[in-house]
C-alpha cells in the first residue's frame, strides 16, 4: 500500500498568485454561467442582445406555434440593408420560442464575425447549413437586402438546397420594423409546399421563388406603416417605415 503524501500548499506568496486569485474571484463573480455551444453561440450574450433589442423595438410576433419545437426548420425573412435583420429576428425568435435560433449570413472577420458567431451566426454556405440542419437546428435565412421595407429581395436557392434535400420545412416570415417608433412585427406563415416534388435543383429554385412571393403577399397584407405623423398621408410606397 502506498502512503498519501501531502504536498505543501502554496498561499498568496507571490504577486502572480495574488493577481491570479483576484482574477479568479472576479471571473467567478461575473462570468459564472458563461458557456458557449458547439457552434460558438453564447446563450448569455444572446439574452443580453435580446434585452437590448427590446429597448429599441416592441416586437409583436405571430405564427410561432407553427415552428417545430425540436426538429430542424428554416425560416426565410425579408431583410433591409444595414439593419442586421436576420440577427435581430434570430435573437427575438430565440427568446420567444425558447430554443436556440441561428441565422445564416454572418461575416467571417473579427470583430463583427466573432460577435455574430456569439449570437448564433453561421456562414452563408450550404455545407454549413447542412451541418446545422443535421443537428436539428432552427435557422433564419434572409432574402437579399433592400432599402425599402415593403420590397422583397431575392432568395438564394443554394441556401434552401440543404432544406429541400433533407425535407426540412421552410417557413416564410414577413418582418416589418418602424424607423421612427418602437413598432416591429414578425409574422411566420405555414411551411411552404411546392406543387410537385423535384428530383433536381429545380426544387430549391421553385421554393425560393415561392418564398419571395409569399413574403411579398404578407407584407402587402400588413398594410401601410404608421409613423403617427402627417408623413403617413404622403403617397410614397414605404410610407416612412
Amino acid at each position, binding site marked *: 500500500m502506498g502512503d498519501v503524501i501531502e*504536498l*505543501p500548499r502554496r498561499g498568496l506568496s507571490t504577486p*502572480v498568485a495574488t*493577481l*491570479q*486569485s483576484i*482574477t*479568479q474571484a472576479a*471571473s*467567478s463573480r461575473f*462570468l459564472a454561467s*458563461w*458557456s*458557449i*455551444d*458547439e*457552434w*460558438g453561440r453564447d446563450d448569455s450574450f444572446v439574452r443580453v442582445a435580446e434585452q437590448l433589442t427590446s429597448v429599441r423595438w416592441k416586437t409583436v410576433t405571430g405564427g410561432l406555434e407553427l415552428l417545430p419545437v425540436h426538429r430542424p426548420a428554416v425560416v426565410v425573412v425579408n431583410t433591409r440593408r444595414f439593419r442586421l435583420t436576420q440577427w435581430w429576428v434570430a435573437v427575438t425568435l430565440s427568446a420567444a420560442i425558447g430554443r436556440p435560433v441561428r441565422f445564416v449570413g454572418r461575416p*467571417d*472577420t*473579427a*470583430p463583427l*464575425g*466573432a460577435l455574430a*458567431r456569439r449570437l448564433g451566426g*453561421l*456562414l452563408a*454556405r450550404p*455545407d*454549413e447549413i447542412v*451541418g446545422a440542419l*443535421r*443537428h436539428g437546428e432552427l435557422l433564419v435565412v434572409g432574402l437579399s437586402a433592400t432599402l425599402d421595407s415593403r420590397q422583397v429581395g431575392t432568395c438564394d436557392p443554394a441556401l434552401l438546397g440543404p432544406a429541400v434535400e433533407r425535407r426540412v420545412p421552410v417557413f416564410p416570415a414577413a418582418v416589418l420594423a418602424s424607423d421612427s417608433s418602437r413598432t416591429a412585427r414578425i409574422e411566420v406563415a405555414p411551411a411552404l409546399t411546392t406543387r410537385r416534388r423535384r428530383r433536381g435543383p429545380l426544387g430549391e429554385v421553385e421554393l425560393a421563388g415561392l418564398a419571395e412571393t409569399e413574403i411579398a403577399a404578407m407584407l402587402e397584407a400588413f398594410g401601410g406603416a404608421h409613423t403617427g405623423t402627417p408623413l403617413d398621408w404622403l403617397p410614397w410606397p414605404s410610407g416612412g417605415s
Partner: protein
Amino acid sequence: MTARPGRRILVSGMGGDLGSRVAAHLEREAWVGEMLGIDTDPPRRRLKRAEFHLASPYDHDRILALVERFNPHVIVHLSVWEPFSRANPKTARALTSEAASSTLGAAAECPALESIVVRSGIEVYGRAHGAPTRPDESAAIAPTCDFGRSLAEIEVTARDIGLRIGVPVAAVRLGSVLGPHVPSPLGRLLRQPFVPFSLLADPPFAVVEDVEGARAFVSAAERRLDEPVNVLAEGAITALQAIRRGGRIPVPLVGPDWRLAKLVSGVAGAPIPDHVLETLHRGRLADNGRMGELVGFTPALTTVEVIDKLYAWPSVIRQPATRQVA
C-alpha cells in the same frame, strides 16, 4: 466489419503518450495477436505483449526490414510530431514526413496487410476566411498551418497506398489532444500563469482527451474503417473561458503584440506554434456527429470538462534539497 482473431498489429509511434495508450488498449483486445511497436523513444507505459524497437524515421532500411519480417495485418500509424510538442516545427515536419514515407511505404510491401489507420487532425480542414465553422468528414482538405499540411500529407500518402494495394484506410482526425502526459503546446500555453487571448475574436475551439483519442484508433482498426472520422469532445470553449476556468490571468491582445507574446511565451517554456496561434485567432471546431456510427462510441467528456481536467493536473513542485551534496 470486425477483425478476425490473431491479427498482427504494427503501431508506429508507440513511444509517445498516444502510441503507448493505443498499444495498452490493443493488448486488451481479444482480436489482437502479436504486436510490434516502432518509435524513436521507448513506450511511456508498461506493455506486456508488445515487441518494441527503437528506430529513427530516417533509418528506412531498418524499418523496412522490421516491418517486412513482422508482416502486419493492420498498421496504426501514430508517428506524428506536433510542432513544439517534442520538437521544433522544422524538425517535427521532417520527422513526420520521414516516418510516414518509411513506415507506410514499408507496410505497403507486406502481403498480409488488411487495413491502415493513420493519425490525423482537424487542422487539415484549415481556417481560411470563409472556411466552414464546423466541417464534417466530407469537407474539403485545405490546411492553413504547418501541422495541418503535415497531417494532410500523411492522409494523402496513406490513401494512395490504400488505393494501390486495395486496403481500407482510416484517418482519425483528432481535435487538440490534451492529457496529463501529452506534450501539447496548447495545454502548456493554457497552464501558464498569464495566458494571451485574442480580444477581438476569442473564437471557440474543441479538444479531445488522450484516452478517447486512443480508443478511436483501436475501434477504427477493429472495424477496418475506410474513411476519415472526426474525433473530439462535445461542445466548445474559448480561450478566455478556459483562462477563467483555470483561474489564470488573461492577457488581451489585438494584433502586432502577438509577436511579443509568442516570444515571451517561448522564453517562459510554452512556445506557440502556428496551428495553436490559428486556434486562438480563428477557432477550431469540427462536426463529430458521425463518431458513434464510425467508431462506435461518443465522447464521455465535454470540451469544458477536458479543460477543467487540464487545470486539475498537479504542477511540478520543486522542493530544494535539504542537504547540498555536490
